[in-house]
C-alpha cells in the first residue's frame, strides 16, 4: 500500500480497530476515514451479535422504527418479498450452530447524519456458506450515535460457490 493514509495506519502499531473492521468487511484499510469507520462499525457490531447469537447486542445497533425486507430468490427463478419490523432482524436461533455473516467490499456513503452500507454478503453456518446475496443498510446518526434504520437483503442459496471455493 502506498500513500500517507497507509503510513498513518502503520504508525499506530499492531492492528487498529478500524483495520480489523476493514478486514472483516473486506475493505482496504487505507480507504477508511473516521466517519466511514464509524458507520461500518455499526454493521460489524450487528454481525458480531449474530455470531455471538446475542440479540441484545444486535438490537443495540437498531433504531426502534424501521423495516427489515428480505427477497428470497429461488433456483426456479421465483421470488418473494417480505417486510417485517426491524426488531425481527435481531432474532437468532438459539441452537448450537455457529453463524458468520460478512460483507464483501461494501459501498459506504455518508451525508451528515445519514449513511448507507451496501454490497454483496455471505452467510455461513459452521464454516459452510449457506446463502449469499446483496444487502443494503440504511443508517442514521441521532444524538451522535449511528444506528441502523432499515435493512434490505436478498437470499440466494445458489451461485455462492465462487465465494465458497475462495475460502477453502
Amino acid at each position, binding site marked *: 500500500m502506498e500513500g500517507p493514509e497507509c503510513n498513518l495506519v502503520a504508525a499506530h502499531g499492531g492492528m487498529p480497530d478500524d483495520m480489523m473492521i476493514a478486514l472483516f468487511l473486506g475493505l482496504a484499510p487505507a480507504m477508511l476515514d473516521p466517519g466511514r469507520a464509524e458507520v461500518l462499525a455499526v454493521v460489524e457490531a450487528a454481525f458480531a451479535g449474530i455470531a455471538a447469537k446475542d440479540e441484545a447486542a444486535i438490537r443495540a445497533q437498531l*433504531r426502534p*422504527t*424501521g*423495516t427489515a*425486507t428480505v*427477497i428470497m*430468490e429461488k433456483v426456479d427463478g421465483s*421470488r418473494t*418479498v417480505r*417486510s*417485517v*419490523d426491524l426488531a425481527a432482524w435481531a432474532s437468532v436461533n438459539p441452537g448450537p450452530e455457529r453463524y458468520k455473516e460478512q460483507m*464483501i*467490499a461494501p*459501498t459506504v*456513503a455518508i*451525508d*451528515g*447524519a*445519514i449513511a*448507507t452500507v*451496501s*454490497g*454483496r*454478503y*455471505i452467510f455461513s453456518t459452521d464454516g459452510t*456458506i449457506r446463502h*449469499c*446475496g*446483496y444487502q*443494503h443498510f*440504511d443508517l*442514521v*446518526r*441521532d444524538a451522535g450515535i449511528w444506528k441502523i*434504520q*432499515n435493512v*434490505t*437483503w*436478498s437470499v*440466494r442459496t*445458489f*451461485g*455462492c*460457490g*465462487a*465465494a465458497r471455493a*475462495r475460502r477453502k
Partner: protein
Amino acid sequence: MIFLPLLLAAAPAADKAPAPVSASDAAAVMAPLKAWFAGIDATDATAIRNQIRIDGGGGATIAVSRPDGTKLVRHVTWEDYLAKIKPGEHRYHEQFTASPMIQIDGDIAMVWGDFTLSVDGKVATCGVDHFDLVRENGAWKVQNVTWSQRTAGCPTT
C-alpha cells in the same frame, strides 16, 4: 434527469465485482422516483402513493440540520408523510442536482443523490435523498426513504 449509474450487482456469484448498471435498468429504477418528484411538484399524494410499497411497513426518516447547529432525526409513517402532501398556496419542486449513485442487485435497488427542494421557485432545503427500492411483481417501488435536510449551503438553483 440524467442517469449516471455507478454499480450493479446482478451476477449471482457472491464475490464478483459489481458491474455497471445499464441505462435501461437505471431508468427502470429511477422511474418511480421521477414520478414521486412529479407528485411533489403537483402536490399529488396519490401519485406519490403509487410509487410506494405501501404495505411494506416502511416510511420516511429525516435527519434535519438547523442553522443554529441543532440536529433532529424523525421517522414518519407513509400515511403521515402522504397526509402532508396536499395542494396549497405554495409551489414545490424537488430534483436531484447531480447524477445519483444507483445500485441494483436482482430485486433490490438503492439510489443516493443530492437534491434540492424549492418553494415558489427558490431553493428552501437541500441534502441527500436515499431511496431503498424493491421490485415486486415486476414493478419497482420505494420501501423506505431517508434524507438529510439543511437550509445552509444549498445551491441557489
